[in-house]
């Protein structure tokens, strides 16, 4: 079903569109961001600077960006998918040459007014190109090897480039999100079984490679895996993050120690307390009730996206929305697993809560696309 089939008169147009936004979703996003402001205010020791205030400004910017993107018809975004993806690849290439090195990885391009992280952008554009691809592909061809190979390449090219930066966390997220869209699009399950089987084999190979010349991961990545598997082995060294984060979480108890009363974050026992580990502060200060509420908010966001996607008869729109939801899910699932000691520390921020401009803007851009799909969904003639 292409946009030519839309009965244009059934799609809202002009400023009226604003009423057709998925408002519950927008409110949920704002609520999560609000939690973020509260926590950033708390970890700064009860101060809007240096984190809470810029974060609020960025969210306001992001919200406006989301509304603007949502106002643009979804078919325009579909047509832009190829361009956006190609542009992302160029930017990733740019990182190779002009990127800024930070924390042992080359991830950013300094644009002067902001630092752009093209790997963040890749998460959105990859979803767009895959959704556009499966929208275009006649459905009987979708499980043929050749037509499977094309999306696989579309996924692997950005994954490989991000891995070179190196940024293991983001490349895994890209891989999972891309695979997820292929799965939703209906590619035969045997491919996934094969890939998962191969993946297990690869993990085995990675561990085998340790200490040899063709070592596949950096030493610090191996160490992170080691300490993930046994954080107690090195409680003051590499296992410090996980151990301290679990202590913070656990000491929260049912209702937490109270706003700005978390000793673990206030006394700097927590690493990266305003970015990757901000969830631990929430869990420490508001306890199980607070932490579970945030999880519920996240789940509701996913739920609203899925409902919106499934009620949308436009294939591109539903694939795009599901892909974005999946991305979002992977974001918070990996972050929470990490701080709760269920996954190695891979450096994935908590979406909309962690301090950071690039990630927030890209995320709001993505939700703008989902909103656009929602606003411009094909409607039955009433």
């Amino acid at each position, binding site marked *: 079903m292409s946009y030519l089939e839309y009965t244009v008169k059934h799609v809202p147009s002009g400023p009226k569109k604003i009423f057709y936004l998925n408002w519950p979703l927008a409110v949920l996003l704002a609520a999560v961001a609000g939690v973020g402001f509260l926590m950033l205010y708390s970890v700064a020791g009860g101060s809007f600077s240096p984190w809470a205030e810029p974060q609020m400004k960025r969210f306001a910017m992001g919200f406006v960006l989301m509304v603007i993107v949502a106002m643009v018809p979804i078919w325009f975004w579909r047509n832009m998918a190829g361009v956006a993806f190609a542009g992302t690849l160029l930017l990733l290439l740019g990182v190779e040459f002009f990127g800024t090195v930070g924390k042992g990885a080359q991830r950013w391009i300094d644009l002067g007014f902001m630092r752009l992280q093209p790997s963040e952008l890749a998460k959105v554009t990859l979803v767009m190109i895959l959704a556009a691809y499966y929208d275009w592909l006649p459905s009987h061809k979708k499980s043929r090897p050749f037509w499977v190979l094309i999306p696989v390449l579309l996924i692997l090219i950005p994954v490989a480039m991000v891995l070179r930066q190196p940024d293991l966390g983001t490349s895994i997220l890209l891989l999972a999100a891309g695979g997820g869209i292929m799965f939703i699009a*209906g590619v035969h399950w045997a491919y996934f079984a094969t890939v998962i089987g191969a993946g297990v084999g690869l993990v085995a190979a990675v561990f085998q490679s340790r200490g040899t010349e063709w070592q596949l991961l950096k030493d610090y990545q191996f160490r992170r895996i080691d300490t993930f598997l046994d954080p107690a082995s090195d409680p003051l060294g590499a296992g410090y993050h996980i151990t301290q984060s679990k202590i913070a979480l656990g000491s929260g108890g049912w209702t937490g120690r109270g706003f700005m009363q978390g*000793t673990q974050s206030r006394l700097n026992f927590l690493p990266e307390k305003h970015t990757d580990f901000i969830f631990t502060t929430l869990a420490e200060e508001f306890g199980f009730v607070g932490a579970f509420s945030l*999880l519920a908010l996240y789940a509701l966001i996913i739920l609203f996206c899925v409902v919106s996607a*499934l009620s949308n008869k436009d294939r591109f729109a539903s694939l795009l929305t*599901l892909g974005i939801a999946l991305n979002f*899910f992977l974001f918070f699932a990996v972050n929470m697993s990490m701080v709760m000691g269920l996954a190695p520390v891979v450096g994935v921020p908590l979406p909309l809560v962690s301090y950071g401009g690039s990630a927030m803007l890209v995320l709001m851009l993505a939700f703008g696309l989902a909103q656009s799909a929602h606003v411009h969904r094909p409607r039955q003639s009433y």
Partner: protein
Amino acid sequence: MKKPRVDVEANHRLLTRRAAVLGGLQLAFVGALGARMQFLQVDQADQFRLLAEENRINIRLIPPSRGEIFDRNGVPLARNVPSYRIVIVREDAGDIEETVAKLGQLVSLDPDEVERALTEMKRSAPFLPITFADEVSWDDLSRVSVNAPALPGVTPEVGLSRVYPFGSDYAHVLGYVGPVSDYDLERIEDPDQLLRIPRFQIGKVGVETKLEENLRGKAGARRVEVNAAGRIMRELDRKDGIAGSDMQLTIDSKLQSYVQARLNGESASAVVMDTQSGDILSIASAPSFDPNLFVRGISSRDYRSLTENKYRPLASKSVQGTYPPGSTFKMITAMAALEEGLIGPDETVYCPGHMTVSGRRFHCWKRGGHGWVDLETSLKRSCDVYYYDLAVKVGIEKITAMANRFGLGERHDVPMSAVAKGLTPTKDWKRRTHDQSWVVGDTVNASIGQGFMLASPLQLAVMTARLASGTAVTPRLIKTIDGIEQPSGAGESLGMNENNLRKMRRAMYAVVNDRRGTAYGSRIIEDAVRMAGKTGTSQVRNITAAERARGVTRNEDLPWERRDHALFVNFAPYEDPRIAVAVIVEHGGGGSKAAAPIARDITLQALYNGDPPLEAYPTKDRDRIETQQEVLRGIRPEANIAGRDQA
């Protein structure tokens, strides 16, 4: 390009199905996250809360001040004085090299110490104070304080350090303190957390270690909240420690200083005891050493000079040294015989200068013999044969039992290091340790305090005190703890026939005051303070036949370490005994010549509570004594409270 409607519908159904599968997986994962949260935050909350508190709260110990030690009159013997050190906090100091250079212009810094401090500083957190100079003088400290504005991050700190104002006079009694060593920590079961404080001082020897528990006190504690880097954010609460108990020794510091000075130059030991209460008024061992050196950490050169000295300054001879008591033991043999009723009122023994017991000939010290001697004469002139004769009659069991009743062979309970038990041999003991059976010759040797018999100066003092008082008095060194009077050493009656004891005392009186007594040269002529005593000369080894052939018969001809030990025990005043004294001069030769004069001087000093009038001495000695008193006044240290300049 229009797709068939059916295809679209089928596609959407597949999409919905797949999305449902994926959504289900996501929901399951969210459930897992929720379960994990519940596990960490609800099930294990208590444990993690505890860990968080452990992270946050540090306990910092506040060391208590150590109990001080005084003499019986309240003169301080061990004190705590402020010791100053200069510390630098890196984060406040700015350019550390420059600050240290500036500090070096004001006070002399040891380059090694600075090197060590800089290394330590690099390793530790920037807010921790690092010591750059220890034991800084008050002058240096004032210079630093005045220039404080030019020295950012430099602060003087005050601690307490142990000082012994009388230096070497109490080295063997009090011992000394020193920083806790790894060896100490290993030795102590379940060590007090205090001991882990760097530079914390504990008793190493003597009273300082024996009464460590009383002296140390209880640590106070500050509970502080720290951040991840260990910086103290705030103090949560504070509990002050309990200072260690002050205590008073029974020692009279004036007498102790005199005795120590009087023994100067000899390898000797002396003990002065109250005959009634058992209070040790003085317990000295010479040569001695300055315990303050050990507190600060003794240099290896100083330490070597102490260990290589043949007079063994480190040995506490008064309690640790055991010697054959020699003739001072004769009172015990005599008492054993008297109590058994084996000596008739006018019984005499003929001394031809030797006596043959089971085929072996035992000599009297006087080759020509003493002729007919009775009990008093035998003691007065120290006739050996008389006691050989008694020994054969009484037997070793009775002699040893009597020795034990007088406190020989018993480890007296005084809080000093290495208190020796001495030795009062029995038949059993010899079979056990030498695998030989007792022979009557052993008994003969024992009767004059030779052979296996061993006693320490403290034990001899106790023996003499018991003879004088007729009670089982025990030595007491600690007078009060925290102002509370400690149990007296006064004892029950020995349960011996008072007539027998009186006979012994009269005989001892004769030793000193009879013209033919062995210690007549050391008599006191002031009637109120006349003393009674007994000389002793204990052989270190026999003069060999070869030496005798070379003409060596006199002690003075032998090298120092093979000469006889000189002993003397006495009590005074004779009429109403108040003090008992035991003196041993190692390798000093004869007891009458080397030990008795010292004992007399000490006795008079104790009874007159200071230098006695020269009239107490026989006329011919007075000039010599006058000079001696003057010399000794020069040697005796003034109490040096600061304790710094004493070598």
